[in-house]
């Protein structure tokens, strides 16, 4: 790891804030609670105890789960945390997303933003971590990402339930004239066993909410959990099997208009010439307006229905200015490779790599160049938002991963105060990082200014969605290792070049803030892995290509999982050591990692002979606080390579819902395999070449392997779940293909080199 001295002199990027060696913030300001946003909008005879719990006189219990539900099950798990401590069943609570509010800041999303590996528990690392948690609160970003929602909510949500329960008991004690200690709770009622008297929560809610909050909140011991730690029925499942209107695209309002956008196919480029006449005259078209946001330039089509808007968008004849970035994928690739020539920022620098390589005999060296492409998120639900601008106030309905940002940026673009904006966050048909962006909301907000107060639902075509993403950055890497006498690496030097996701995000969301210091996401997943190698340097270089890039499920680890673990497999091959055995040796200082590797190897019966035409590969990545090993078995078939089986072992520290965790690990692995098998976003003439699922496809059911998942709880800190299955998927597959065919594929997608059945 970087030493303390180096850190103190260095600045590093976290989210939107540049922090110099930690932060100094007044303790009082940090502790000052935000106002409870639920107080503004309570139902009749309804009271609120804190930003997470409302109880009505009729015993209706509402839990606010203020994180974006994009399939990861977060609304269920957050509600379970409250229900557990409130002592009610999950079927007894209504769950709402709640309003956009700074009270719902996500501290955990930034806590791992410092330049420390997750397992680094040095004083400096811990101090910066808690400092970054404070920044999370000061920036007060209500956001869903970084696989952080459960870690952020674990204490907050349980405390919210427990504090409410303590107040309800105290109010019941007063009303019944008994001691609080003699009261028990179950299923939303408070029981005095000795007298047999009972009261519902609703009956004492008003009195309880008027009492002073408890000075000390007692949480249940894990042994007493009834709901947490066990698989729950998801609260959103019934709506999702009946086609209920729960997504942004399903919003319907009285008098609503429909629309779409046609933005410049060259990012940031303005229209040079545009002929709108033909499109404007088409049936059902009301108006075409120019759009300009931090995301770029284009047109908004306002129409009587979505189809009319789509047809008109197609009929717009526009010429766009030249792009500010290289025109083609080859030219972009040259810029990335050139960037590798720079020294870069070493986020890990153990020993002295330069000296170790200086006298290395040729036969002891392993060297390789790797590359991965840009990737689109391709959520199933294309980008969309519905907006109504009436009487100086803006209402906006959309699935989004950051409601307070939607509020702030839409207020700016429309030119009103934030207080005049109401954000209605819907369920989302996939997020994967795409809905951290704000373009869909900004376009709808601008178009709502042009409809005379009528609401408008703006839906993007799939083509528009595919060609206007904040992509997973392309990246290239140069890798060198020197093997020691025993075959194990004594020196490893990894240098990775990629456009900076943080700088790109700032340009779109906070253009007034200049990025300072290196972007850690360029090396995430490579610099922070639990390997001990005496000389070990991992450096990142930001490459100057301004195609928009952003957070794509597992972010930097999606790139570097492939790079790091592909190269580790190459080292094992060169050293003629079994890749599992090599990892166990290099990871010996990290018992949680070793146990994961041992577990997944045992599950897959690693080392047992396979029939001809079948082979296995393995990979391991620690990301978002979870330790994940994956082994993939492939088979050579006449139709191409078939992925037969995937074994996953994941140490998440504490597993709050094993059913949802297993589903997420499988989901994330399939997401990674889909990309590894065949996905790439390429450029020609400054425009994205892919447009729809025919040329940017994902794994289909007939390609889907059988999964076997083990969830471990060995490490003492909780890890994230939604993204951690993605990073090891691509390298495990590539390593399996090497074992099968002897082909070492260092460039994704693999379909450039091999065919898949």
């Amino acid at each position: 790891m970087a030493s303390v001295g180096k850190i103190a002199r260095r600045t590093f990027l976290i989210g939107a804030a540049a922090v110099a060696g930690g932060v100094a913030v007044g303790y009082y300001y940090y502790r000052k609670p935000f106002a409870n946003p639920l107080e503004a909008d309570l139902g009749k005879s309804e009271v609120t105890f804190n930003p997470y719990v409302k109880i009505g006189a009729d015993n209706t219990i509402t839990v606010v789960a203020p994180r974006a539900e994009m399939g990861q099950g977060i609304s269920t798990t957050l509600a379970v945390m409250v229900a557990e401590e409130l002592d009610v069943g999950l079927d007894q609570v209504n769950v709402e997303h709640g309003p956009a509010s700074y009270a719902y800041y996500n501290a955990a999303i930034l806590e791992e933003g410092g330049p420390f590996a997750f397992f680094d528990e040095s004083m400096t690392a811990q101090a910066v971590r808690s400092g970054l948690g404070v920044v999370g609160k000061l920036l007060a970003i209500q956001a869903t990402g970084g696989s952080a929602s459960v870690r952020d909510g674990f204490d907050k949500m349980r405390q919210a339930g427990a504090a409410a329960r303590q107040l309800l008991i105290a109010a019941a004690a007063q009303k019944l004239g008994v001691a609080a200690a003699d009261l028990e709770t179950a299923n939303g009622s408070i029981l005095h066993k000795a007298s047999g008297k009972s009261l519902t929560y609703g009956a004492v809610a008003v009195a309880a909410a008027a009492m002073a909050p408890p000075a000390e909140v007692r949480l249940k011991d894990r042994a007493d959990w009834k709901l947490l730690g066990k698989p729950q029925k998801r609260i959103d499942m019934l709506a999702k099997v009946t086609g209920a209107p729960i997504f942004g695209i399903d919003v319907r309002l009285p008098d609503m208009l429909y629309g779409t956008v046609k933005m410049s196919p060259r990012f940031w480029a303005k229209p040079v010439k545009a002929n709108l006449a033909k499109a404007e005259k088409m049936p059902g078209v009301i108006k075409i307006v120019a759009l300009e946001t931090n995301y770029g330039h284009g047109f908004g089509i306002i129409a009587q229905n979505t189809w009319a808007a789509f047809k008109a968008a197609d009929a717009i004849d526009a010429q766009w200015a030249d792009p500010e970035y290289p025109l083609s994928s080859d030219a972009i690739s040259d810029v990335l490779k050139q960037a590798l020539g720079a020294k870069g920022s070493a986020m890990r620098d153990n020993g002295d790599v330069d000296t170790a390589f200086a006298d290395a005999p040729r036969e002891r060296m392993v060297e390789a160049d790797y590359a991965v492409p840009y990737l689109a998120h391709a959520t199933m639900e294309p980008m969309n938002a519905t907006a109504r601008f009436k009487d100086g106030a803006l209402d906006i309905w959309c699935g989004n991963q950051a409601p307070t940002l939607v509020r702030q940026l839409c207020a700016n673009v429309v030119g009103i105060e934030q207080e005049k904006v109401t954000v209605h966050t819907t369920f989302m048909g996939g997020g994967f990082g795409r809905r951290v962006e704000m373009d869909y909301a900004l376009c709808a907000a601008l178009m709502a200014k042009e409809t005379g107060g009528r609401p408008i639902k703006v839906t993007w075509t799939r083509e528009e969605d595919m060609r206007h993403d904040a992509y997973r950055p392309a990246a290239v890497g140069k890798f060198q290792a020197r093997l020691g006498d025993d075959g194990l690496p004594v020196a490893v030097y990894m240098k990775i070049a990629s456009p900076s996701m943080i700088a790109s995000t700032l340009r779109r969301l906070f253009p007034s803030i200049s990025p300072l210091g290196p972007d850690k996401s360029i090396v995430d997943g490579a610099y922070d892995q639990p390997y001990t190698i005496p000389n070990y340097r991992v450096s990142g270089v930001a490459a100057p290509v301004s195609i928009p890039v952003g957070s794509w499920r597992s972010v930097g680890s999606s790139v570097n999982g492939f790079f790091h673990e592909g190269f580790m497999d190459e080292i094992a091959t060169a050293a003629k050591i079994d890749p599992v055995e090599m990892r166990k040796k290099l990871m010996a200082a990290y018992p949680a990692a070793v146990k994961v590797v041992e577990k997944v190897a045992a599950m897959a019966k690693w080392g047992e002979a396979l029939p001809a035409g079948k082979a296995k590969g393995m990979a391991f990545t620690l990301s978002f606080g979870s330790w994940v090993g994956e082994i993939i078995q492939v088979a050579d078939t006449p139709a191409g390579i078939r992925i037969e089986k995937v074994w996953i072992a994941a140490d998440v520290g504490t597993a709050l819902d094993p059913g949802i965790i297993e589903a997420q690990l499988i989901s994330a692995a399939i997401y990674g395999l889909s990309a590894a098998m065949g996905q790439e976003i390429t450029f020609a003439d400054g425009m994205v070449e892919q447009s729809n699922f025919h040329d940017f496809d994902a794994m289909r059911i007939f390609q889907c392997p059988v999964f076997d998942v083990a969830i471990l709880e060995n490490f003492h800190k909780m890890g994230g779940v939604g993204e951690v299955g993605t990073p090891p998927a691509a390298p495990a597959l590539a390593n399996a293909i090497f074992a099968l065919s002897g082909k070492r594929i260092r460039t994704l997608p693999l379909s450039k080199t091999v065919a898949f059945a």
Partner: protein
Amino acid sequence: MRLTVDGQSFDINADPDMPLLWALRDLIGKTGPKFGCGIAACGACTVHVDGQPVRSCSLPVSQVSGAVTTIEGIGTADKLHPVQQAWLEEQVAQCGYCQAGQIMSAVALLDEVADPSDDDIDNAMGGNLCRCGTYPKIRSAIKKAAALKTAGL
């Protein structure tokens, strides 16, 4: 133009080129079928016309000749179709966006083949994309639904 959807008759005034999907969603207010791609490549828009699964995003509404059934027409929250029941029990959905289309393809499959093999499932469901990767649970839910249907539940 007249359309029968989920047992109800609707009079609509649509561009003959308008895909059935947009007539359902924008003109009739049936938002169960989802827009995913517009080129019949993802299956999120799957509905039945006279019991046959079709991609409504690519079928002009003027060419619809039979009764249309959407996800909203096969069952309700109180009385689920066996396929919906199996989906619920197996906890299939994640984001849920593709699931209306998945369920409609599965319903059509089980109407044709009472006890589908893995190959039958692969063939019938290959056109339905799921970006959350719920395929293993879709497979087990179809098998469970087959059992529920056979048992007459």
